[in-house]
Structure formats: C-alpha cells, structure tokens
C-alpha cells in the first residue's frame, strides 16, 4: 500500500487547504447564501420567502437604472481609455534608453497609493476653487467646472481619475507581453521593408492581443465594481450622478438593511459581468491571436 505522504497529490491538497478553506468559507459559501437570500425578504431579523419578488421589483426602481447607467458609462469609457493608456506607457517604457528602471518605478508608484488616500488626493485636485486641475484650466483660459459638485461633470471626473492607475499592474502586464515578443518577428518585418508603424500594427498588436484581451476582461470586471473612490469623494452624489452599482448595493444592504434585495442586486451584477465576459470571449476569436495556435 502506497503511503499517503508519498503521493504528490496529497501534498498538493494539503498546501492548498488554507486557500480552499478560505474560498469555501468566505467566497463560495457566502455566494450561495446570497443566492438563497435573494429569494427572501430579510432584514437580519425577519426572514420571509418572497420568490422572485426582489428580482421583479428591481427594474421598477429608478435608482437601479441610474446606478446601472452610471456604471456602464464609467466602465465603457474608462476601460478602453485605461487599456490604451497602459499600452502607451508600456511601449514607452519598453524602449532601450538610459535610466529606464527609474522611469518604470516612477510610473508604477501611483498604483501603490492606497485607494482611500488617492481618493482624498483627487478631491483636492478636483476642487473647483483651488484644485490643481482648475488652476491649470484657468491658466489656459478654459472653463473651470465644479467637477464633484455639478452632476454633469462628476462622471467625467471619475473617468479622469481612473487614468491615475494606468501605470500600475496593467502596464506591467503589457510590458511583460511586449518583452515576450521575439525579436525575430521584427527582424523579418524589417527585412520585408515594414515601417515602425507597420511593425506596431502588424507585429506588436497581434502578438499582444492575448494580453490586451486579459486586461480588457479584468478591467471591465474591476470597473463594474467601482466603489471606494465614489464612496469617499461624493457619496454617490450630487443628485446620484456618481451612484455606481456597488454603492447602491452597499446602501441597500448596510444602510437600509434590505439584505434580500441587495443579494438580488449582487446576482444581477454577476449575471451582467458573466454575459459581458462571454461576449468578450466570443468576440476574441476574431481579434486575439495566440502564437503557434488558433485564436
């Protein structure tokens, strides 16, 4: 009989046990519990089965649509801009120039600032009277909006702020992707007379498409869950202009104690993310190219 300790699988399971316990206890378990709760009216004391009532009522709530539209607008503007920004910085930081490690560090530093601290910092930047942004705009003779107080400008302000993170993990992944592209492709392209621009469009971009796909999927999932910045900077205002889906969900659960409705909201968000991720996977067959294989 082979001893259990001699089986590699045993050690594998043993070492992932803490993670597995955490996943089952703190992720999978609560997820299933929230699915169950979404069919109940629950305020942490009284539990009453209501079937699909929580889901049926969501479309009747104007704040649900407001939160959804705010979140969609934020995600579909900030993610493409962010991915493009990260790619541009990665391309710059992939150049062979003196002091490149220093530049890479400098660009990465903003992403190390905790999100709460960054939110407070950006509150100052967006200050309509004395903020750095409006001082700069005023200097150039441009209009100086009330970024966080005027509902027309709140969402653009959050999109602008999201670019703060372009030098972070996404940029590092792009950089790793760029460095993984073999020099031989460029050499062959140059021999065929390809210009720098042609090399970028026909070599770099196709070979970087799996990385871009990864960043797009994760970026969209992250953008749909925006919370901290808006919670701290505007609390969802003014006039719900920055009421993002996660803030609405949080308020429903922990300010109004409607745990059933909040669970339904969470599962609707899960379904939305699932659909968009599946769409991206389906669409990726047309534009993502894997080296040595089909898309």
């Amino acid at each position, binding site marked *: 009989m082979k001893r259990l300790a001699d089986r590699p699988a*045993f050690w594998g399971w043993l070492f992932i046990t803490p993670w597995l316990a955490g996943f089952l206890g703190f992720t999978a378990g609560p997820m299933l519990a929230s699915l169950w709760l979404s069919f109940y009216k629950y305020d*942490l004391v009284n539990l*009453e089965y209501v079937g699909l009532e929580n889901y049926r009522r969501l479309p009747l709530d104007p704040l649900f649509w407001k939160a959804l539209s705010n979140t969609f607008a934020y995600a579909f503007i900030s993610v493409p801009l962010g991915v493009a920004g990260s790619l541009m910085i990665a391309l710059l930081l992939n150049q062979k120039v003196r002091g490149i490690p220093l530049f890479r560090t400098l660009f990465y530093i903003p992403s190390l600032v905790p999100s709460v601290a960054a939110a407070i910092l950006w509150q100052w930047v967006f200050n309509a009277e*004395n903020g750095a942004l409006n001082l700069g705009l005023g200097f150039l003779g441009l209009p100086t909006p009330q970024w*966080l*107080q005027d*509902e027309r400008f709140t969402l653009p302000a959050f999109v602008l702020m999201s670019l703060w993170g372009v030098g972070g993990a996404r940029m590092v992944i792009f950089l790793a992707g760029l460095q993984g592209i073999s020099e031989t492709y460029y050499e062959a392209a140059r021999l065929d007379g390809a210009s720098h621009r042609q090399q970028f469009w026909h070599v770099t971009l196709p070979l970087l498409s799996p990385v871009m796909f990864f960043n797009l999927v994760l970026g969209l999932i992250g953008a749909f869950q925006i919370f901290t910045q808006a919670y701290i900077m505007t609390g969802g205002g003014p006039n719900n202009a920055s009421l993002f889906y996660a803030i609405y969900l949080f308020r429903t659960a922990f300010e*109004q104690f409607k745990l*059933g409705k909040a669970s339904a909201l969470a599962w609707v968000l899960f379904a939305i993310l699932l659909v968009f991720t599946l769409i991206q996977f389906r669409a990726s067959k047309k534009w993502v190219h894997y080296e040595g294989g089909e898309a």
Partner: protein
Amino acid sequence: MVLGRRAFALIGLLVVGMATTGCFSRATGCPEGKTCLRYMAWGNPQQFEVERQIVKRFNEQNPDLHVTVFSVPGTSYAQKQIMMLGSRTAPDVMRVDHYFFPNLAAKGHFTDLTPYAKADPSFDPDVYFPTALEECYVEGKLMALNVLFGGIAMYYNKTMFREAGLEDPWELHQRGQWTWARFRQSAIALTQFEGGRPKRFGTTVPQLPAIIACLRGFGGEMIDLDANRSLLDQPGTVAAYQFLADLVWVDRAAPTPAQGANFAFTFESGKVGMVLDFMGMIPRYREVAKGFDWDVAPIPKGPAGGRTVIKGNQLVIPKNCKNPEAAWRFVKYMASQETERVLYAQIRRCFPTRKDVAYSPEYLQTDQPPYQLQAFVESVENGRILPINERWIEWINALQMETDNLFAGRERDASVVLSRARDKINTILSEDPGL
C-alpha cells in the same frame, strides 16, 4: 492508506501554530466570580479614554460586576452594529445613533427597559429633560436611556461681529430680536470678497439635521410621522429652503458647495461668521478656534418661532444580553449625575440629559468660550426631536439628492425641487419596507 511521520509532524505543527496565534483561543478576560458585561461605543481616543475612566469607576463601585468597554470607529459603527445584532453577538450594552434607533427598535433588537425602570426605586424619570426620554420610547415602551444629547444652537464669531459694527446675536436674542431676517443681514455684512474671490463668509448652509431647525422657524416640517407622508410642499418648508439657497446664490453670503469643498471655509478657521451645530463642537472649537472671540446664541426666530432640533443617542441592551439586570445597572450609571458631570459639565462632549446637571453652576459657569451656555439649555427646553422613522435613511437620502441641485445652483426654485422630492419620498413611504 497510511500517513507518513512527516505528514503528521506537519499537521501537528499547523495545529500548534493556529492555537498559539489565537485561532482556538477562547480567553474572555472575565474575572472569576463576577458578572461580566461588554459595552460598545464610538469616540476619538480622548473621548474613549474618558469613557474608560467612567467604566473603571463603575467597576470599582460595583464589585460584583465587570464591564469592559471597546470602541468601534464611527465610520463603520452602524455596519458593525447591525452585523452584531443580526448574528446575536452584540455586546450587553451598546450606544446607538438615533438615526438608526427607530429602525432597529422596530425590528425587536432591544430589550424593553420598562420593567427594570419600574422595579428600580432609584430610577426617577422626572430628573431627565422630557425630550431626552421622548426619543427612547417606542410604542409606549422605554427601550433605551439617552446619552450624547442636545439641541442645535448657533456658534458665532464675536470678533467678526464687533469689527463689522453689528449687534451681538446673544443680546439681540435677549431682546427677542434675533430673527432669520437679522441673520441674513448679518451674514451679508460679514461676507468679504477680495479680487472676486471669497475671503470669508457670513455663514454656511446648515447640514442635516440643523437644516430642520431653520425649516421649523419658517413653519415648515419634512414629514408627518403619523400620516406617513412628506410635508416638503408646505409653504414654510419651501420658504426655508428658498431662504437658504438664496443665501448662497442671491446674497453670496454662504459658500457654494464648490467653494466650501475640502473644508475651505470653517468656523474654527475664522472664515465663517455663524454656524448652526450641536454642543459637541465645543471641545474642537476650544482647541482649534484661536485668534478670535466666539460664543453661542439660540438659533434665530422665524415667522413661526424658533423651535430648534434636538437629538440624542441611545444606550440600549440588545435582546441577546444574558444579564439584563446587570446591564440595566450600567445603563443607569451612564445616565447618572456622576457620569453626566464628567461627560458634559467637565469635558462638554454634549448636553446633559439630566436637569440637575444642566442647571448646575458647574455646567452653566465657565471661564472659557462659549460663555452663554444658557443657549443650549434653551434649545433643549424649547426644541423638538427629529422626525426620524424606520425609513429615515432612505427618504433623507432621496431628499438630499434633490436638494444637491438647489444648493449647487443648477436649479433656483425650491418649490420645484421640493415637489419632486416630496413625490419620491411619498413613494418610498408607501412601499414595503423590506423590499
């Protein structure tokens, strides 16, 4: 299958590690032979230290009991509290912000204190201000005792008033001439712009719940609790909101939301002449407001009088408490004369709930600002509690979202904004509270 020796050793090591790091530890710190209670509150380190000293004194006076106090940051207190109540792990005594109290009490989270109060010969409800107990009753049952209580009054920069040649609000109040019309004139006179940029403002738009004090002066109210409907379309309510919006956009005597962002204009910095707030601001103003004289006066009178807003927080015994008799002794001690003298007369954290402390020379006489503490006494004598019901958080949020536009100047007509808010609030109030 057989486990190897090394595997056993590894698992053993994990178990020992978990035990030593506290995963299996069940130490409670409760001294042998005593009934132990846990008390949860919020407060900054200085405030918490005072409460710790009060608890220590209680423990010394009650050798059969042992209370341990722990604090939870104010920003996450409400969430922590509801989680603990929901999971039946709440401490034996906890402080609840009144904004949440009616909602939580209606859900049956708290012990009815009526039998304990009736059976206790040392408990006399008449020693408290009636409004201090009014907040604690739910359907005729005493569900809590009040702490950190008080009414809203007006802080003002005496130096600014003197330099502008304006009459002192406290003196005007004594002659019955401190009105919202006078407040507006003063705010305009105190405001200064330099090169088109604001240097100082006469006042700021009051935040909730202070804004309700202004509404009441104009004869307005937000909600009819009995009829469960919004009163935002009442002429007094509309007039008060219009008055406040005009202070910003017509008179330019109060900062716009953009001008006031990031605490650019605060009373303690000497850049604002008058603000409405609770007594709890005194410790901060005493520490920070330097270089000018300041004092307090009651809120101005409007066409409908000058009834201000009163609010407290409640000390409750959650339903899961195993020793409610012992917890009642502690709750009563926290509202005792001895404790209130420390909390309110000495460190001035809030207004006393007890009349004997509020009317005592120790509370009324002081050698540092604010001097007219009578203003807070009058606010509690004349004020009314807030119209908080189970749906407060929901409807007040709906109202604020609408009035954001009014104070940001995107809309100028208060009646239009408030009629929209009224409809939204009436919808909220008519809906099933759990869905």
